[in-house]
């Protein structure tokens, strides 16, 4: 099968990104690793559709990608300002 090398490579990628997500050291490293894991999971689901021959997997990949971007932006907005509803600081107060 021509899909097996790419699937194995993506599994290795997932494992390495998971190691970075556990090691940190800052929260933003973990958020970055989580975002990379989401993207790789989308690609893995798209590959699984062709590997197993079942047409449902690209729909799952699309839904997973939409959830991933929403989750990443929400987490980063929360940890930037400490509050989901608060507007960003005015320009002269930044830094």
């Amino acid at each position: 099968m021509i899909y097996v090398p790419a699937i194995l490579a993506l599994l290795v990628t997932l494992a390495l990104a998971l190691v970075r997500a556990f090691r940190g050291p800052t929260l933003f490293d973990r958020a970055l690793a989580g975002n990379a894991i989401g993207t790789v999971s989308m690609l893995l689901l798209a590959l699984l559709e062709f590997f197993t021959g079942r047409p449902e997997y690209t729909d799952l990949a699309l839904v997973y990608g939409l959830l991933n971007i929403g989750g990443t932006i929400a987490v980063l907005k929360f940890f930037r300002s400490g509050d989901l509803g608060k507007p960003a600081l005015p320009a002269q107060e930044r830094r």
Partner: protein
Amino acid sequence: MTLAQAATSVLLGAGGLFCVIGAVGLLRMPDVYTRAHAASVIETIGAGLILAGLAIDAGFTLATAKLGAMALLIFFASPTAGHALAKAAYERGIRAKLARPGAESEAVRGKDPAQ
């Protein structure tokens, strides 16, 4: 093996290789900004090559349209997430590791470091 299958296997192999390269960079780079740089390899060329290989394999079908939607989603969402991540990290006081200490303030002031 037809020509389309050969093109698919080459594109999938190259995409998987670039994904592993990006993950190794994510693991080995020294700070969060360089790690974001390494992770963007996964989201640009790794995802692009794998989706292109699958689209060649599927031909003109509904699956290719869905793969195109995934490609659009990745190519709009991942720069947005990268920008939000770098901005959030900077505003929470995380600074890039520099080869020379103080190089950032010199760059901000526009001062020649040789003087």
